């Protein structure tokens, strides 16, 4: 692909720097736009968005019903929309069924509610084993489910993005949405973890 592939290897940082220089010089991207994109996903858009969605579903039965029926709209009502989350589906974990989300082919992930995917989500160990040995993968996260719990693995690989609604932990009756959201981890919204127990 590049002339220097067979020559002395160029560090990836140098390579990316060169790429940015060319794109900016040619007027295809603006440095300030790149900065704004980085800032958005480093500061504003992350798993706390999804945690708020989950906490709302835990305390508001109508919202929960809406979320499970039309996740895109229900999530948008809290202000979370856009890139890599245009078509959302919410999957509710129950004692009978546990949902685990993977993208075996790439890194499809619900950016508006979870932000950028963590490295493990994009890496071969998770992508290869989630569909073959989901219990083994869960064990890597320290999660053991009862043998009676059925595990459903959802391979995103395209435009639908999934948000797992973990089981609400016991002992949280009467908690506020804000407090509940603290118990909702990123991993629990992928299905790779459980909500924290207070």
């Amino acid at each position, binding site marked *: 692909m590049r002339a*220097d592939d067979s020559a002395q290897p160029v560090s990836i940082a140098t390579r990316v720097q060169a790429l940015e220089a*060319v794109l900016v010089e040619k007027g295809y991207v603006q440095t300030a*736009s790149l900065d704004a994109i980085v800032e958005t996903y480093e500061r504003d858009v992350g798993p706390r968005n999804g945690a708020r969605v989950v906490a709302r579903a835990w305390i508001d039965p109508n919202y929960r019903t809406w979320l499970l029926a039309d996740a895109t709209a229900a999530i948008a009502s809290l202000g979370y929309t856009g890139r890599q*989350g245009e078509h959302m589906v919410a999957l509710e974990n129950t004692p009978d069924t546990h949902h685990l989300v993977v993208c075996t*082919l790439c890194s499809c992930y619900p950016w508006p509610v979870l932000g950028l995917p963590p490295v493990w989500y994009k890496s071969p160990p998770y992508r290869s*084993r989630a569909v073959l040995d989901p219990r083994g993968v869960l064990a890597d996260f320290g999660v053991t489910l009862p043998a009676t719990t059925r595990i459903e693995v959802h391979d995103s690989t395209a*435009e639908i993005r999934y948000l797992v609604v973990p089981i609400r932990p016991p002992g949280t009756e009467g908690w506020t949405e804000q407090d509940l959201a603290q118990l909702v981890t990123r991993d629990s919204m992928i299905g790779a973890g459980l909500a924290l127990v207070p």
Partner: protein
Amino acid sequence: VNGAQDLGGMMGFGPVRSEPEDLRFHADWERRVMAMVVATGATQRWTIDAARHARESMPPGEYLTSSYYEIWTRGLEALLVEAGLVTVEELGQGRALDPGEPLTHVLSPRDVAQALATGSPYDRPVAEPARFTVDDRVRTRNLNPTGHTRLPRYARDKVGCRRAGAWWLRLSGHQRAWCRRVSTVALHSPVRSPRTLGRLGRSRPHRRHRRVGELPGPGLNRFTCRWLEKWCDRAGVVAISTVAEVAIGVRASRRCRQGLTDVAAGLAGLVLIRDVSRLSEDAAQIAIL
């Protein structure tokens, strides 16, 4: 393509290593390449599926030994070169050797927030219901396309239930060009009726053709879709249609002659869909039982 990206079901990569949720990047160059991928996508010079294909086209050994943002970097470089926006020399030297091409869409800083919050929805209106409905019992096809596919190997030739709705497979520029050719070339029908094509399609090329018409505007009508699908099936071409939609995976291009020769040439395995139609992410790759 059956590339290294199709990881589902493989073994030997070791345990999954979790990381803290507030860890967003591991190096500054990762920030820049993420932002460049987003910003250049806004130029609308390629589609999301073309971008996927660019990453999946990496040699397997390189793919598996690259970090994900390295894969994004390589994919973006390939897309830019393929689109004619930059040259390999420019990437090597890290500077523009020629002025940039004027683009209709360049993401300005003030538009970033809105662009990210809007995204680009992939659903499209359809006049008719898709062939498959949710919970239909289906069998996936055993495709081995050389282009981008949403059907991983572990899920091919499997019986299951359709769970999701229909979605659009977005085409690369060159795939769109092929679609235009489909709309003018594919309608040269063999003189024999579709019913007799099974034997013929497997044995020898069609020598005579009857022009049955041109596709109306941007669309295939329902009859045409069904006819084309049958024709393709018989001719050893994998055709997938959800009634108002046509997708053609050319699996056996040597069996395609005349009518679909132009479409098939160089396209073995590519899953195509008409530009204006939708392709279900799973349903287009399944056959009803």
